[in-house]
């Protein structure tokens, strides 16, 4: 009896400590300038180069990805488009608040989103209300489940892209362009990107013909490899036409996520000529990189390993992120 209750106490204690630790490490990133007044002055009006809107924009009615009919104001000034900031930046629009999680924000967009206050990724109703937005754009269906759509639309007109559009940045870009009445601009961003990608593709074919590239993400001492069709894999293999290493093909076929775990054994077989490493373990010493197996990978041995911080665009998806990835590849791999 004594032993049993003691064990229980230990378990309970550890639960308590764990939950406290969790609560504590979530709490340090606070943004105190959430008052609506500062937010209002910070949200500059949409970019001046919006020449296409020569005819004064009018209010429009659109049907969103979930079938809701949304009345979108003619010239929304205070937009919240959480985790869709990439598109807004591409279209030259400044949101009134930006996506954040307890331990981070989208660092790669910060040159454009500097000084914009953050809002928690789960968009609590009151936090949203405090910015007095005039348009909400949401991505995945899951953001509005449980009757949340009704509540959000009481705060401001709410447009949900829906899973199908949200998972393809080209579609999402054009859709958001339509919502913000910047259709032509969105098309131009897309065309520019395709041109840039095509140009980079030719350069890469000249610089490293027929060589393969893999992208690995190191986090918490585990390696993940990007899928050959999703996320930054879509940029590398689809847009830039780089060769997919066999191991990556194999893992992508069995995995479902954008990034799938790769075991050390498989890592030893990694037949890529060039390796892109996104290192989220830098602050904790990147122990995994000292492993002899890692050291023995051909690309690492030959010095064809390019390391990027977790803050870089590689873990994200969108026109700006993809464009930055192309810049990285051109600069580091095809030098």
């Amino acid at each position, binding site marked *: 009896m004594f032993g049993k209750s003691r064990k229980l106490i230990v378990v309970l204690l550890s639960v*308590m400590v764990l939950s406290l630790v969790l609560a504590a490490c979530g709490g340090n990133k606070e943004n105190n300038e959430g008052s609506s007044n500062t937010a209002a002055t910070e949200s500059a009006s949409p970019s001046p180069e919006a020449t296409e809107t020569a005819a004064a924009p009018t209010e429009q009615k659109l049907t969103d990805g979930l079938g809701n009919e949304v009345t979108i104001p003619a010239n929304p000034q205070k937009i919240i488009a959480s985790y869709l900031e990439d598109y807004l930046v591409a279209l030259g629009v400044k949101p009134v608040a930006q996506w954040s999680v307890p331990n981070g924000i989208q660092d790669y967009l910060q040159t454009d989103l500097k000084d914009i206050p953050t809002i928690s990724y789960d968009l609590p109703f009151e936090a949203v209300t405090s910015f007095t937005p005039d348009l909400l754009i949401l991505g995945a269906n899951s953001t509005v489940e449980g009757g949340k759509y009704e509540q959000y639309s009481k705060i401001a007109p709410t447009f949900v892209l829906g899973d199908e559009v949200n998972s393809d940045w080209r579609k999402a870009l054009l859709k958001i362009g339509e919502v913000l009445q910047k259709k032509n601009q969105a098309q131009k961003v897309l065309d520019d990107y395709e041109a840039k990608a095509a140009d980079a593709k030719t350069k890469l074919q000249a610089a490293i013909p027929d060589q393969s590239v893999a992208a690995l993400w190191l986090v918490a001492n585990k390696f993940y490899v990007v899928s050959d069709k999703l996320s930054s894999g879509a940029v590398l293999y689809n847009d830039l036409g780089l060769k997919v290493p066999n191991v990556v093909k194999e893992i992508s076929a069995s995995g479902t996520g954008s990034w799938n775990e790769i075991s050390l054994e498989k890592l030893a077989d990694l037949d890529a000529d060039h390796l892109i490493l996104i290192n989220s373990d830098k602050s904790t010493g990147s122990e995994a990189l000292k492993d002899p197996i890692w050291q023995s990978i051909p690309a690492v041995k030959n010095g064809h390993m390019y390391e990027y911080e977790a803050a870089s665009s590689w873990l994200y998806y969108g026109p700006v992120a993809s464009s930055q990835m192309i810049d990285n590849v051109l600069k580091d791999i095809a030098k």
Partner: protein
Amino acid sequence: MKETSMKMSLAEQQRRHRSIIVISFLFIGIIVAFLISMNTGVIRMSPLDVLKTLFGFGTTQQHLVLFDFRLPRIIISILIGMGLAVSGAVLQALTRNALADPGIIGINSGAGMVILLFVAFYATPAAAPVYLLPILAWAGGGIAALLVFIISYRKHKGLSSNRLVLNGVAISSGFSAVTILVSLRINPEQYQFVSTWIAGSIWSKDWNYVIALLPFIVILLPFVYYKSQTINVLNLGPPMATGLGAAVAKQQIWLLAAAVGLASSCVAVSGSIGFVGLIAPHLARRLVGQRYQTLLPATALVGGLLVLVADTLARWILQPAEIPTGIVVAVIGAPYFLYLMFRTKG
């Protein structure tokens, strides 16, 4: 002889007096917590603003925040606390086990499993009708409890409390095992949804859910209270209760059904909030004693107060982010539970 009976009735009178005081204090506690909770949130609203808004003189924004975001959530918290606590008190009496709570007859794990299966097979819960998830959770909790009940029931003997507890633990672990197995095969976004749900985030917070939950509470709480004398008798154990003339098996079934109805409707709306059903009756027992006539109202009030305070803290600690209420309840609950463990041993 005469003297002792007089003494007893005097003690009894004192105890009743004390119970009334305790219950009034708890009631005042809820009102105070209610007022504080109305003033808590990302958007600053002074008590005066709240008052103005309540009487229709606030700005549109204040009106929206108070009536659409804060009030439904406060009311749901209180209702859930009451429902889970009373359900726990009833189950503790039926099983004559101080550690019983709604989780022990599989309600939480049953509801959790059904939610997970639904999310795993229909990838987009958002497209589903608003009420679907709560109804599914309700069904899952009910099925789990029914299973436990069927396995534990013996003709002529009624429900054996030990069997009920053991079967409950077995069925819960079985359902949790399935939940974990399936959760390994869903994508991260779905998993996040399910884990938030299981952590007990009060995620359905509009008036629709208040309306959906209210009938259960309004019907079942008075029903259980009406049965409080029976619960007192059942608490003595089946042989004694039979001796005192109670139709043990029949009463057990009614009360169990009420406890399951209360707990699964609460779990359906709130996700799995543990500990309330366990702690609230213990706290109340310490305050007003064993008699269910006073214990039940005290338990309901303690439960309501506990969840309301936990939810207010959940909204306040990490502003502007929110932590699941279930976790706050556990953080408050675990130390108290520890304290109980040490006390009982000493």
